[in-house]
């Protein structure tokens, strides 16, 4: 009797897990399809109301490739002090606070609008890069990615970093 009971419970658990997984996958199918292809997820864009464009998330691997081939400009959204303590080599500092005061104007003079820009800050729990990315897009930059893993992921992967200088 005990055995039958346990089999029943195991079947029950499998059923609950299966139904939930099916619901979850169906609900997030676009997001998952994008992630599967390794594309920057477009979920954020689809969910955002029209008119407000969000920077697309980009993974460490792609950031490394764009960094190495110098195809993208990396922009550090953290404070100047953080930047001085350590940043992705070759990155430009544009703290969110400053960009808010003066919407990316001095930045825009130096960088063409069609440049590929990757913004980052202190990792997944930091949302400054997303905010800065939005500002840059509003300022007219077309291709803006947000590297969500940010400086911690880059550093932990052993990729080149630099210190000092703004």
């Amino acid at each position, binding site marked *: 009797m*005990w055995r039958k009971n346990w089999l029943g*419970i195991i079947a*029950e*658990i499998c*059923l*609950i*897990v299966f*139904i*939930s*997984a099916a*619901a*979850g*996958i169906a*609900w*997030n199918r676009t*997001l*998952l399809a994008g*992630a*599967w292809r*390794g594309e920057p*997820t477009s*979920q*954020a864009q689809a969910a955002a109301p029209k008119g407000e464009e969000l920077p697309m*998330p980009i*993974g460490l691997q792609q950031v490394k490739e764009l960094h190495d081939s110098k195809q993208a400009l990396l922009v550090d959204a953290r404070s100047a002090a953080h930047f001085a303590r350590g940043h992705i080599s070759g990155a430009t500092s544009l703290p969110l606070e400053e960009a808010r005061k003066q919407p990316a104007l001095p930045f825009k003079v130096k960088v063409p609008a069609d440049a590929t820009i990757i913004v980052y800050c202190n*990792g*997944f*729990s930091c*949302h400054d890069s997303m905010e800065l990315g939005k500002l840059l897009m509003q300022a007219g930059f077309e291709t803006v990615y947000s590297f*969500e*893993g940010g400086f*911690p*992921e880059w550093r*932990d992967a052993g990729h080149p970093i630099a210190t000092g200088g703004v």
Partner: protein
Amino acid sequence: MAGCGAPHSDGWGMNKVRGPLSAAVRVILGAIFIYAALVKIADPVAFAGSVAAYQILPYFGNYLVAAVLPFLELSCGLLLVCGYRVRGGALIIAGMNLVFMAALASAIVRGLEIDCGCFKQGGPKTSPWIALARDTVFLAMALFVLRGEAKKDRLATTKKPS
């Protein structure tokens, strides 16, 4: 099955208290999980980020977990609140909590400074230690509910023959 034939008259006093208490714990635990699920379903990308911050799963794995886990939390929470198939729901919740605790412990061991990502994504960070303590409480609640269910079952089987 040792207790099957034993008389239950002496246990009644406790059961009177345990019954409602177990039901209350069941509903509260269920509601907590429903809340946790809804805030994650609202922002799957942010939750995928929280999962990725643990640096345990590969890239796609983070998104898969972010897609499925909230729905599993939601179903189990609903089952617990409704009192339907409680044992399956509570067992899964206990299992999920064990996984969460293992993930948090590994984050602490590796010295990762991350947000637990347990409830609302973003905002102030919840330290892994607090999250670990909280999950211990949830695990205890799930076990308490399971024990209540087992007791109810035992009562039902002993009552039937009479």
